[in-house]
């Protein structure tokens, strides 16, 4: 956001009409540095805060008597939001109109959502592919109430959503709220309700900076209707602080050295990774560290931390054999899952910021050595330290450990194949077969799994070759039902410009929370393939309630009541077609799978979203 005039809209009719309006804002200088010496900004006068440090970067804008929401868009420009998910509402009319006509519905482009939870969950999925947030604009009262679970999922999953709330504090009514962000303050990192436009500028930049600094989390800005719609007095000087990204917090070098020593001296070191890799680079660091040590890796797959077919990839049971376990962004790893006397080491940013009311943090893990820092930022130093400390005398033992772990991995994979083959030809469909049939047709394409991988009994993770960061967005964070469908569409939106084939393995119960997500995908031409895990039930609850009845010596046979989704069976294909998708199903016989997948992929590659309603076994 150095030069307001670079925000020229594209040459639509609306934009041509908006030129006069845009011309009201004049840059006082081409660059912040150039103007810094000459003008004291309004925000500096008002708040007295940060003026000295921000002065060298500030951009001053002189009003020609126009709209507050246009200035807000100037502020947001420097974050380069590609999209803004929105559920339209009256209290953000000014801001929505500015997106449309002032910035030409480009950077950000509005993504129409028919439910506020869709708007935030799409932002969640988008970030996990793109590595930067999109903006979200929803109603501050009833809209945020709808969106709350998605905000919580993003918080638990350490995803930086940038959420703006329309509000109207000078007109008490059922849709106005005194302190709009309060409802989600237990599960957001920062919020503000600016009183002036300069206050908005300050808070927007701060919000973005706070959100993007690990541990990354959602932030909320309440944007009052009066502020959006105010006419900025002619000649008033407004100031936009420049955003300077924080360097992620890296671990103390002495602690890193000590930690490396414990890893190098271990008989069987294991890396337990949860949200360790924030980027493709993080994935590479974890591979490098594991291979240096020939350490086992246990992955809870909250991020794409480690390749699924890497020979050092291990099952959780190996934690009971390890003498040293390094938990990377895995703050809930239970000491009870380790063998007695094992050393538990940790690198995590979790303690740098957390909230207390919602208990997503688990029990205290009693680490032997804990480094409060971002794991990905700390790994390069740890890798160098491990390289330095490994003695020549240990190299053959380390190699032998790797051979043994590779053999264990090979045995696990063979066992998985035997399980996959069991019930291979059954109807309803074996979920392993659904995953295998899909893999056969996507493995030579540039694909991305935009849903959780723990649906369909983890078969995608067990059978597909995940080795790139965008191959998988990880799980949901809160495990709240309703996350997957919109998060998948958000991730597919991010994949679209890269030309990747987005695959969504979609549970039926989750789907029905927000089916309107399909319309958004079709309307915005977001290509993706959704394959239903249609077991016609909330099957986990079917299992739990059956078990409860059995333990109480009661009638087990009635335990589908309240948990199955049949009578009538939902026709997902018909639903998808009604909202502009290519769709087939219900598909119940394995012989019908491969041809249907082929046709659906062809539809997706032509730019259309496609859905296959596959009727599956419960798990």
């Amino acid at each position, binding site marked *: 956001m150095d030069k307001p005039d670079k925000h020229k809209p594209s040459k639509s009719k609306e934009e041509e009409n908006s030129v006069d309006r845009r011309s009201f804002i004049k840059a006082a200088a081409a660059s912040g540095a150039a103007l810094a010496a000459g003008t004291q900004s309004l925000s500096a006068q008002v708040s007295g805060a940060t003026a000295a440090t921000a002065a060298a970067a500030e951009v001053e804008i002189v009003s020609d008597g126009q709209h507050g929401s246009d200035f807000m868009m100037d502020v947001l420009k420097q974050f380069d939001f590609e999209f803004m998910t929105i559920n339209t509402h009256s209290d953000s009319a000014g801001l929505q109109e500015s997106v449309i006509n002032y910035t030409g519905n480009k950077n950000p482009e509005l993504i129409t959502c028919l439910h506020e939870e869709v708007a935030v969950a799409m932002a969640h999925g988008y970030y996990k592919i793109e590595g930067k947030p999109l903006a979200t604009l929803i109603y501050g009262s009833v809209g945020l109430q709808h969106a709350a679970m998605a905000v919580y999922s993003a918080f638990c999953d350490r995803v930086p959503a940038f959420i703006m709330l329309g509000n109207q504090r000078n007109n008490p009514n059922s849709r106005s709220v005194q302190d709009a962000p309060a409802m989600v303050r237990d599960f957001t990192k920062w919020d503000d309700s600016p009183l002036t436009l300069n206050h908005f500028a300050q808070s927007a930049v701060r919000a973005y900076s706070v959100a993007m600094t690990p541990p990354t989390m959602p932030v909320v800005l309440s944007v009052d209707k009066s502020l959006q719609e105010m006419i900025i007095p002619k000649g008033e000087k407004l100031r936009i602080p420049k955003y300077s990204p924080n360097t992620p917090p890296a671990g103390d070098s002495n602690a890193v050295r000590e930690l490396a020593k414990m890893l190098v001296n271990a008989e069987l070191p294991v890396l337990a990774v949860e949200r360790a890799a924030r980027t493709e680079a993080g994935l590479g660091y974890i591979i490098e560290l594991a291979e240096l040590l020939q350490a086992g890796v246990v992955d809870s797959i909250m991020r794409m931390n480690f390749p699924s077919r890497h020979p050092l990839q291990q099952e959780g049971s190996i934690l009971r054999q390890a003498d040293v376990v390094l938990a990377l962004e895995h703050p809930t790893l239970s000491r009870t899952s380790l063998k007695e006397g094992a050393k538990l080491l940790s690198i995590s940013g979790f303690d740098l910021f957390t909230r207390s009311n919602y208990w997503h943090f688990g029990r205290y893990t009693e680490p032997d050595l804990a480094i409060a820092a971002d794991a990905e930022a700390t790994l390069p130093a740890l890798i160098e330290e491990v390289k330095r400390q490994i003695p020549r005398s240990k190299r053959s033992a380390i190699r032998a450990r790797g051979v043994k772990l590779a053999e264990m991995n090979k045995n696990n994979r063979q066992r998985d194949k035997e399980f996959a083959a069991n*019930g291979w*030809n059954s109807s309803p469909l074996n979920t392993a077969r659904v995953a295998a049939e899909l893999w056969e047709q996507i493995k030579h394409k540039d694909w991305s799994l935009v849903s959780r991988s723990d649906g369909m009994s983890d078969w995608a993770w067990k059978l597909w*070759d995940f080795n790139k960061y965008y191959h998988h967005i990880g799980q949901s964070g809160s495990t709240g039902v309703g996350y997957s469908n919109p998060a998948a569409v958000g991730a597919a939106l991010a994949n679209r410009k890269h030309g990747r084939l987005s695959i969504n393995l979609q549970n039926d119960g989750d789907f029905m929370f927000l089916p309107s997500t399909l319309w958004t995908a079709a309307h915005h031409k977001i290509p993706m393939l959704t394959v239903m895990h249609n077991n016609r039930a909330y099957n986990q609850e079917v299992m739990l309630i*059956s078990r409860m009845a*059995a333990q109480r010596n009661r009638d087990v046979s009635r335990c589908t009541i309240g948990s199955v989704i049949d009578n009538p069976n939902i026709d997902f294909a018909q639903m998808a077609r009604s909202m502009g998708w290519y769709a087939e199903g219900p598909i119940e016989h394995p012989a019908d799978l491969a041809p249907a997948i082929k046709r659906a992929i062809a539809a997706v590659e032509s730019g259309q979203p496609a859905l296959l309603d596959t009727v599956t076994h419960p*798990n």
Partner: protein
Amino acid sequence: MHYMKELWFVSSRVITSLILLIGAQTIQAQISTAEERGKQDFVTYMCYGCHGFTGQGGQTDVAPRINVDVHTAGSMAAYARNPGGRMPPYRTEEQIPDAALSDIYAYLKSLPPSPAPEDIPLLSED
């Protein structure tokens, strides 16, 4: 008189058909196999929820496959009455009759063997 004969003839045919039909249904009920009853019981008593409709199992830490290596009807029934791990205990006849357990065993044993993974091209990748 001729009319009465015809009426008797038709009536006797109808009665005979009804007897045959009822008999057939009774016989059908009687010949319903243990495997067929077991397939139904597998759903009624919620076994499918964890083990899948053909006993192939679910996630490895939730439910094992039970369509292979089921030793005897007795051992299976004994385990169902007093299980270990996360298996729900079906302790009483009210929860599941012995006969149903026996039929479920017959159903599981009747299932055709699944192909070996090495015979499935889709599972042939290293």
